């Protein structure tokens, strides 16, 4: 087996005088899918932000086997979609900024946004806005995907498509790390933050 792409050692983070997590240890390889779980406020978002380098106040070590930023596809809690821009403009900007390749229109079509390409995002529903952001997953050129709550606001049909896309990407050697309150699927590694209480939803 090849060396881990990501190695986390003794990771701890404090916010607002509260220790979110401490002594976190794990390593993840290309081709794996990881789901981060935990109650509201457990620190899932914070952990992802530490991994991508947006949050710098932590103890312990986070090591990527190769520079992260050229490989990274990060989707934050907020989808990063500006309401004034159309679906295509939004996607083309993020594509240029991150240096991805592939056809934006095809990606939008894959997310059922065919026909909505030129509508300002502000006039789309919340779910459709998130789909614009998710369309980046249908572009090429990134092999570490870090996704914060990718399934939020997406309907059942969309959830299935997205799940399938993640598995397909992992097969092609992408390391996928995402947070979600959904049930953890087969073949997905689980990283739980906080006490291990099953929370009813």
């Amino acid at each position, binding site marked *: 087996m090849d060396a881990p792409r990501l190695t986390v050692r003794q990771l701890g983070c404090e916010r607002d005088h509260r220790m979110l997590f401490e002594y976190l240890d794990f390593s993840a390889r290309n081709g794996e899918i990881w789901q981060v779980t935990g109650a509201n406020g457990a620190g899932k978002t914070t952990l992802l*932000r530490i991994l*991508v*380098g*947006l*949050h*710098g*106040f932590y103890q312990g070590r986070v090591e990527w086997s190769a520079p992260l*930023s*050229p*490989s*990274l596809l*990060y989707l*934050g*809690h*907020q*989808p*990063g*979609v*500006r*309401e*004034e*821009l159309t679906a295509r*403009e939004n996607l*083309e*900007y*993020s594509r*240029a*900024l*991150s*240096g*991805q*390749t592939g056809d934006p229109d095809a990606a939008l079509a894959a997310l059922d946004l065919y026909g909505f390409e030129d509508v*300002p995002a502000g006039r789309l529903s919340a779910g459709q806005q998130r789909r614009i*952001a998710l369309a980046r997953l249908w572009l090429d*050129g*990134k*092999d570490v995907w870090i996704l914060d709550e990718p399934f939020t606001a997406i309907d059942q049909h969309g959830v299935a498509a997205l799940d399938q896309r993640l598995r397909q990407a992992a097969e092609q050697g992408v390391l996928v790390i995402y947070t979600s309150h959904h049930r953890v699927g087969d073949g997905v590694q689980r990283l739980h933050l906080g006490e291990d209480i099953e929370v009813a939803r």
Partner: protein
Amino acid sequence: MSAPSLGTVWRASLRRELTLIWRSPADIVQPLFFFVVVVSLFPLALSPKPALLALVAPGAVWVAALLAVMLSLDGLFRRDQESGALDLLLTAPVVSVVPVAAKLLAHWLLTGLPLALIAPLLGYMLQLPVAVLDTLMVSVLLGTPTLTVVGAIGAALTVGLNRGGILLAVLVLPLYVPVLVFGAGVVRTALDGLPTGGLLAVLGAILALAVSLGPVAVALGLRISAGD
């Protein structure tokens, strides 16, 4: 894996920023309107004696321009931050200075530049002699980019805090002093009929400093606000 070329990022960013501002024209009109309103407050607050007005005009126009730029900066990064687009920018595989600089340029083109273009008109309304109106315009033209850049540092540092514009004002106004002193100073000097070349050169030097170091500071400020 794949990283984009700086040129691509620069062009894509600039196009996006211009489109954004263009789509909500209020963002262009409001600072301009504020500028005009504040300048018109002065003749009301002072007496409308032409001689006095002309003396006050350089300062009034400059103070108003400064406040207009500052207030317009309050929202510079806010919507990008709320929508998460800022995180996208900060995690992109290019130095974030490039898209940040594009943002600053777009902002200046669509707020600072209009201010400079309308400044002579306001100067005329404040009874400035026609001969100094071009100096007024040049000074505002040279000064506003610095105001944009320096103010953007403050906006970057306060982007996550929903305190309204007053914290930004408190941080940024003291930093605006040099531009104000030289900017208004140039016009006063022209009013006195003295040569303004030296002062304009200083204004230009400050501009060069701000434009070369400013975007780096702004990008750093955004990183800090994001939590790094």
